[in-house]
């Protein structure tokens, strides 16, 4: 796996800019979401195959750790989605806009939009989490 090594040292040793971060984040968020999705499909299907287990699963999901993971998941899907649209748009409709200025800016805009979407959602989810799991805010 010497290539793996170059790749990892590459990521560590190369100071890429916005485009590189976008690529890395897109990949990491995509993999994160797909991992979650695989589990999620299986656990949801317990509703049909093993309703008893489903109750346990839901309880696990309600734990604080999973709660936080869920907040991260929401970010992943927001960023992956916005950035994915950015990539798809440029690739399919505006190849000429793959310029340094526009790429840097569009990446930052994508990140900005994801954060704008995520922060209120995360706040709300955190609020619910604290309310249910720690009895705060009169939960």
């Amino acid at each position, binding site marked *: 796996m010497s290539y793996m090594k170059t790749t990892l040292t590459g990521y560590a040793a190369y100071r890429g800019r916005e485009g590189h971060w976008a690529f890395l984040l897109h990949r990491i968020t*995509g993999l994160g979401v797909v991992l979650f999705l695989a589990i999620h499909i299986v656990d949801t299907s317990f509703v049909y195959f093993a309703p008893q287990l489903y*109750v346990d699963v*839901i309880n696990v*999901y309600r734990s604080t750790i999973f709660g936080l993971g869920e907040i991260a998941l*929401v970010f992943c899907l927001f960023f992956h989605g916005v950035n994915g*649209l950015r990539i798809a748009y440029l690739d399919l409709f505006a190849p000429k806009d793959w310029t340094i200025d526009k790429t840097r800016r569009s990446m930052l805009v994508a990140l900005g939009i994801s954060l704008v979407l995520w922060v209120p*959602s995360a706040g709300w989810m955190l609020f619910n989490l604290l309310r*249910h799991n720690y009895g705060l805010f009169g939960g």
Partner: protein
Amino acid sequence: MSATTTSQPERVRVRKNFDQVAWTWMRYSAVLLIPLAWFHLVLQDVVVGVHKITTDYAIERMANMGWKIYDILLLGFAFAHGMNGVRQVFRDYIHNPKTFRAVSILLLIFWAVITAVGAVALLSINPAAQ
């Protein structure tokens, strides 16, 4: 208008390639996934919240015909999109063609099994029968 001796054909035919189809698929499915995945996520995780989700809630939702179609679409597109993404990532790092073939087949089986499990559950749920 200036004179030219253009040799180039207007259009060329390029044989299709799997990676090309996959690339295009990733982009078009992405557009569909925005409403599908985002709405699902926002609804279940943010608006409703995991603390309100119960077996009954799940069954009720999955039994609704509109939701059934929605979920089937989501399952089909999102998981296929994601699994092809995983395949692409593996393709970058696995150089031995045999190993990559084997991994691809495993991924394909994984994808088929999970999708089948999800689809069976979704299609079969029917509150009257429970």
